[in-house]
């Protein structure tokens, strides 16, 4: 990776003065004029364009929240593309690769739009530098959503520059030449020049104006939407050559393993490091300042054992004898916390949505049914535990780390060390899984702190125990739903109360109030056609670091709403799929005001006009999933189908699970998932994300419970924090992607298949066994 970045830097074309002059002349001269003359002079062309999907029509630009993210989006080919004289095209991947395939997909889009041959494309990974590359926070299922348009613009601009260069070389008009499969051709003259031959001249041109660009039609795509391109790192992964966080090394690198406070904010009362110092290979023992809860992504602090190798550092850390003053959160206990959440959820909270008069309607209702669902903490537990290498040299810090947000890691680390961001570099390796954990780069800052302390190079290695015990956990939650029915059993009121500590507690003082993001994930936007709908949040406080976990608050929202929907259907003697569709009601665009919101829907911060909540699309995925899974078919005793649907990350997903309950365990012969994520840029990787989301969600539903006692996490490794394995994973995940043209905006993929999984599973288990599970995880509940 290092070598690749260096060679890329060397290969970037350099400008000569002559080139600069040419650039200016061509930009003001022919390119724009030619474009204008085509549009003004050839009226037929313009008219025809209205009826035929020409390139200009095929890609009408639309706003996304990408423009409003810190440092926005960048669409300059000079930043993202370099072409070598031998024709090799180098494309920069600026988003982090944690398994979604984004490091392949965005460059693939650039390559397709510029007519490059994928076999001659090389990818290099950008360091954390948002002013240069645009936003790099790889989370929120938004890399494609925010960068599919800039990627096409980069590709089209590069193609335009190559065509400009060829036209100039041949002395012809640019409209008479065309880039095709790594060459620019002039059919009439029979001229051809490879991208390599044109590289210097083309890449020396200034970036053409957006208005000068032409785009490929969907029929012309070679890679986009085709799903034939394999992930760029596939060969390296299968040969062990792929580089992850712990795989970077320098001859003088020391390894540090850290004893962190067992309770967030606990202070050291006394320490005896005699035995640790006696471990062969241990060189230094250093203190890292303890930080209280609410310190954002700052290291927890503790005692670092710095050694010659990993084994010595681990042994040294284990030999430390530390007595901790447990402090404020030393009484945090899951048992009492759960009771507190249930208590606050039983009382009125503060309203986040009031459509009609939910409280009044519940009072008047002939029948009121109440359901309560509980979800404990969960740890992301990526296969690669947090790790980072940092080197301090000549007053500067350079980091190599598997981080989702390298620029945040850079600025946070600079701030922590009292350095300038320009004196900190963050290089991004492959991420061995992340699921939200590696958005918080406390581990990279730890490495940087220690590197500065010893004036050299240090790799911080978290053990699995460290990872399970010191995560930024998925929040706990109690979601209580009260439904009022009239005398004809028609639902007239639906009120949901959410008691869940907010991740705001990680960023500052905990006021017990949820963030807009958390409310927006399924609490404020229940898409049901019921006259009176209320949503309230109840005060809930955190006793540990809370952070985002693949699909975040959508997990508890889909779990509660979709479980309650099926429970209600059973109560009313209705088919669960039909009842779900009945509640969703007719196809319509949800309107925030009509829904009784004080403002707009949060909507993943996406502009609502472009990405509205369309209940028709939600119903459609429900119908398709039911149809494909054979909903309604007769199954043997002990087996059942369950259905659930949820919109998140502006995508619509429905899941049908076939469950078989036997001897207290559950097996899943098949799962059907239908996703409507707008235009599907890389269907093959969408399928792998759906399969992965099912396994991830199944682990959460079956096993994931992080529990606290006296402020300490009780679990430590995969024996008590279990994972779904090959012998109990969903045996066959059938994915159906609703087909759409490019004009239906691409939306999220990495996360949205997680939320509907758990309720579909609980509904399937109920239909198979009659057992209703309302508290996650399932663990031994099927045995009782």
């Amino acid at each position, binding site marked *: 990776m290092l070598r690749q970045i260096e060679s890329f830097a060397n290969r970037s074309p350099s400008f000569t003065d002559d080139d600069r002059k040419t650039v200016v002349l061509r930009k003001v001269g022919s390119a724009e004029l030619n474009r204008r003359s085509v549009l003004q002079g050839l009226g037929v062309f313009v008219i025809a364009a209205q009826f035929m999907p020409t390139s200009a029509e095929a890609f009408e630009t639309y706003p996304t929240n990408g423009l409003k993210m810190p440092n926005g989006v960048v669409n300059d080919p000079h930043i993202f593309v370099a072409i070598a004289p031998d024709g090799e095209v180098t494309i920069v991947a600026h988003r982090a690769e944690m*398994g*979604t*395939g984004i490091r392949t997909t965005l460059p693939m889009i650039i390559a397709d739009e510029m007519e490059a041959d994928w076999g001659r494309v090389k990818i290099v990974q950008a360091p954390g530098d948002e002013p240069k590359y645009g936003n790099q926070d790889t989370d929120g299922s938004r890399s494609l959503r925010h960068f599919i348009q800039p990627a096409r613009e980069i590709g089209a601009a590069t193609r335009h520059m190559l065509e400009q260069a060829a036209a100039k070389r041949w002395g012809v008009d640019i409209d008479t030449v065309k880039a095709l499969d790594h060459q620019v051709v002039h059919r009439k003259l029979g001229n051809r020049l490879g991208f390599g031959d044109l590289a210097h001249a083309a890449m020396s041109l200034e970036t053409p104006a957006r208005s000068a660009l032409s785009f490929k039609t969907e029929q012309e795509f070679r890679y986009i939407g085709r799903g034939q391109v*394999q*992930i760029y*790192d*596939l*060969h390296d*992964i*299968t*040969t*062990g*050559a*792929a*580089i*992850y966080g*712990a*795989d970077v*090394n320098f001859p003088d690198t020391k*390894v540090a393993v850290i004893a962190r406070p067992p309770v967030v904010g606990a202070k050291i009362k006394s320490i005896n490091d005699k035995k640790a110092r006696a471990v*062969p290979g241990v060189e230094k023992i250093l203190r890292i300042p303890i930080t209280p809860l609410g310190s954002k992504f700052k290291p927890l602090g503790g005692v670092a054992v710095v050694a010659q*190798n*990993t*084994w010595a550092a*681990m042994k040294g850390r284990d030999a430390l004898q530390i007595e901790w003053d447990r402090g404020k959160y030393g009484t945090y206990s899951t048992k009492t916390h759960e009771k507190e959440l249930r208590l606050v959820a039983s009382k009125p909270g503060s309203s986040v949505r009031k459509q009609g008069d939910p409280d009044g309607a519940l009072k008047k209702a002939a029948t009121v049914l109440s359901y309560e669902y509980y979800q404990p903490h969960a740890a992301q537990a*990526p*296969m*690669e*535990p947090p790790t980072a290498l940092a080197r301090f040299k000549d007053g500067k810090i350079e980091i190599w780390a598997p981080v989702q947000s390298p620029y945040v890691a850079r600025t946070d680390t600079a701030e922590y060390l009292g350095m300038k961001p320009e004196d900190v570099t963050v290089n991004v390796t*492959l*991420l*061995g*899984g*992340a*699921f939200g954990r590696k958005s918080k780069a406390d581990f990279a800052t730890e490495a940087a702190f220690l590197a500065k302390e010893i004036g050299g190079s240090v790799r911080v*290695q978290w*053990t*699995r125990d460290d990872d399970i015990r010191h995560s930024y956990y998925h929040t706990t939650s109690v979601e209580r739903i009260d439904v009022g029915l009239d005398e004809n059993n028609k639902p007239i009121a639906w009120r949901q109360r959410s008691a869940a500590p907010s991740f705001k507690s990680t960023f500052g003082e905990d006021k017990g109030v949820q963030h807009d993001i958390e409310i927006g994930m399924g609490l404020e936007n229940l898409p049901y056609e019921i006259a009176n709908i209320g949503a309230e949040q109840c005060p809930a406080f955190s006793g540990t670091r809370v952070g985002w976990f693949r699909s975040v608050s959508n997990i508890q929202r889909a779990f509660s709403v979709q479980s309650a929907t099926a429970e209600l259907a059973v109560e009313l003697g209705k088919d669960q799929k039909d009842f779900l569709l009945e509640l969703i009601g007719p196809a319509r665009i949800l309107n925030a005001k009509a829904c009784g919101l004080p403002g707009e829907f949060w909507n993943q911060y996406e502009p609502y006009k472009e990405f509205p909540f369309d209940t028709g699309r939600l119903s459609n995925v429900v119908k398709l999933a039911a149809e494909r899974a054979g909903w309604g078919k007769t199954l043997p005793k002990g087996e059942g189908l369950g259905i659930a649907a949820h919109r998140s990350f502006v995508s619509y997903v429905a899941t049908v699970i076939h469950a078989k309950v036997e001897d207290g365990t559950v097996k899943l012969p098949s799962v059907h998932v239908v996703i409507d994520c707008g235009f599907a840029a890389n269907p*093959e990787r969408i399928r*792998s*994300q759906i*399969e*992965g*989301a*099912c*396994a*991830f969600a199944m*682990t959460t539903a079956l096993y994931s419970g992080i529990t606290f006692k006296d402020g300490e996490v009780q679990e430590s*490794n*995969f*024996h008590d924090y279990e*994972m*779904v*394995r*090959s*012998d109990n*994973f*969903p*045996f066959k*995940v059938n994915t159906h992607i609703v087909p759409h043209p490019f004009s239906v905006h691409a939306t999220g993929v990495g996360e949205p298949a997680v939320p509907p999984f758990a309720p579909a599973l609980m509904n399937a288990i109920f239909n198979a066994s009659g057992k209703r599970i309302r508290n996650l995880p399932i663990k031994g509940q099927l045995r009782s």
Partner: protein
Amino acid sequence: MKLRINGIERDFNGDSNMPTLWYLRDELGLVGTKYGCGVGLCGACTVHVDGLAQFSCLVRMGELEGKSVTTIEGLSEDGQHPIQVAWRDQNVPQCGFCQPGQIMKAASLLKEIQKPTDQEILEGMSGNVCRCGCYERIVAAVRQASTGA
């Protein structure tokens, strides 16, 4: 003591209690073998000892006298072992971190059982965790490598 790593004879005189994993990674720079749990619960560190899969986090250096260890880097010259080929054909990996361990385990499984049934694959591979959830494709890849289909 002497041992062979990927066919090369090595002398080891360090801490005989050190797990092989750290010798491979820290001393030899063979970083394809991954650390995932340290206690034999995830399989990310799987290597072959005398041809069969072992968790290198559990095998102490002292146990390797006269033994031959193969890591992912030594499984084939050019990445063309049938398991590696099948892994690419089936587009198995997502993040890829656990895959060297999965591949080493699968290669060993096929040595023990030439044509495993699906059930034997599922059970045989159950010591290797993939948090990304590539299991369905792992099974397909092992099946392809064993049957060519």
